[in-house]
């Protein structure tokens, strides 16, 4: 087994009592002293600090020096309108493959003269190679190895960050900005992976621990591990790559059609022109055959990833499977997401999920499982 990487906050995690686990090639904190449940609830109540430095940070610069040329180039790999992405704004996107499957999901920010991308840790090596293979003609693809990424999430995040980096409070959801701080220039986006208001902060590696300590010195802020990160994102109805989305799911099946703007759809100014466009545009037009849905198990038993879904309580063959499932600490009930045929995807539809050999009832429900706290 190859040696695991460590982020610049490794020693701080240990000092904070973290239980470390291997994750996407890194040794990462799965929980701290509070434990998953209390960390989850604290993040929703006040603020949580996450080390997400394992994620990939990429700068995409057009050789022409114009951000629009980088955007036009990247549009060849994603079904998203990036020419329409204004300076200082960020959008959710996904790399698609020739079959319309999802290679990774990512954030793309327009930072004036270049684009800034944040991609999943487990996919970053492939993403870098993919970007270089397809965009090297017009763009320099610069992998950032000397910056950490921290996420500060929760209703108290704004006040905490504003005290350290003036200007944070003026940002709104999906804005990006460079903010001056005592920890060097911070590349800040008002976004996250919890369903809460909050920020993701790219900071010079040498300043990361000091920034983390400054944030943690506030009573409102507790460190949060990967365990609570997963239950927070699940309650927010957000996809986890490799589980809810992968190369076997299209963005339309994954109910991510909202991320495909008009300009890239049939009849749009730049319709298609991304890998798998034929299938994806066809699904946008005719509808997919299956869809990612929310599921509310009707007993207290969590219905976890891999649980087979049935249309009937007895007999029949599976109609789909759960892709993420856990107990939701804030909704105080088990929650799941999974794929089902479109004709079974209506809200309120009763299905059955197999847990330890028994079929237990679960109701199709709207996502997210609780309203988001984004500051729009």
């Amino acid at each position, binding site marked *: 087994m190859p040696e695991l990487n460590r982020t610049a906050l490794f020693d701080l995690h240990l000092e904070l009592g973290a239980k470390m686990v291997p994750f996407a090639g890194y040794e990462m904190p799965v929980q701290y002293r509070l434990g998953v449940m209390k960390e989850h609830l604290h993040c929703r109540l006040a603020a949580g600090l996450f080390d997400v430095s394992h994620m990939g940070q990429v700068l995409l610069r057009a050789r022409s020096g114009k951000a629009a040329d980088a955007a036009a180039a990247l549009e060849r790999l994603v079904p998203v309108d990036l020419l329409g992405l204004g300076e200082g704004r960020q959008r959710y996107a996904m790399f698609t493959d020739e079959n319309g499957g999802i290679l990774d999901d990512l954030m793309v920010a327009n930072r004036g003269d270049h684009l800034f991308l944040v991609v999943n840790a487990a996919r970053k090596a492939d993403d870098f190679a993919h970007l270089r293979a397809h965009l090297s003609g017009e763009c320099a693809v610069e992998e950032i190895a000397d910056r950490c990424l921290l996420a500060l999430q929760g209703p108290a995040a704004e006040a905490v960050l504003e005290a350290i980096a003036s200007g944070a409070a003026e940002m709104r959801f999906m804005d990006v900005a460079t903010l001056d701080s005592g920890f060097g220039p911070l590349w800040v986006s008002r976004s996250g992976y919890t369903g809460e208001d909050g920020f993701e902060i790219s900071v010079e590696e040498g300043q990361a621990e000091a920034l983390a300590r400054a944030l943690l010195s506030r009573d409102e802020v507790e460190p949060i591990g990967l365990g609570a990160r997963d239950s927070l994102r699940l309650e927010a109805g957000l996809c986890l790559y490799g589980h809810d989305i992968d190369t076997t799911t299209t963005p339309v099946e994954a109910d991510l059609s909202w991320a495909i703007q008009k300009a890239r759809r049939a009849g749009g100014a730049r319709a298609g022109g991304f890998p798998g466009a034929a299938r994806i545009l066809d699904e946008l037009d005719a509808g997919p055959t299956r869809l990612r849905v929310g599921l509310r198990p009707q007993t207290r038993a969590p219905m976890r990833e891999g649980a087979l879904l049935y249309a009937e309580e007895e007999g029949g063959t599976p109609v789909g499977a759960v892709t993420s499932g856990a107990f939701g*600490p804030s909704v105080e009930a088990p929650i799941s997401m999974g794929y089902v045929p479109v004709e079974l995807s209506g809200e309120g539809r009763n299905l059955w999920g197999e847990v330890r050999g028994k079929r237990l009832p679960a109701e199709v429900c709207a996502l997210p499982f609780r309203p988001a706290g984004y500051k729009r």
Partner: protein
Amino acid sequence: MKFTEEHEWLRVEDDLVVVGITEHAAEQLGDIVFVELPEEGKTVSKDDEIVVIESVKAASDILAPLDGEIVEVNEALPDNPGLVNEDPLGEAWFFKMKVEDLSALDEYMDEAAYKAFIG
């Protein structure tokens, strides 16, 4: 009190064996969110999987420590699984068993041995 290698504690009360999980087990499992208990009156064999507990992390089983009959289960647990984290040695007992021969308990560890076992 006796302890199994599966991190259960066993206590004799009115000739019944009361079974729960240790503090160490509760801590390792993390926040418990689901408990499924056996039916009262069920006859069980040693090592049968008779209780399902799920934490925020994963599902695990509790095995019957002895042959016998389940005579009572803790009805408070399915509605309040968090009790297992709050008071694993007290209020969060799982079930009470009637066994033929209480001397079968002797094969299990005493507290000192269990402490050494978990290190």
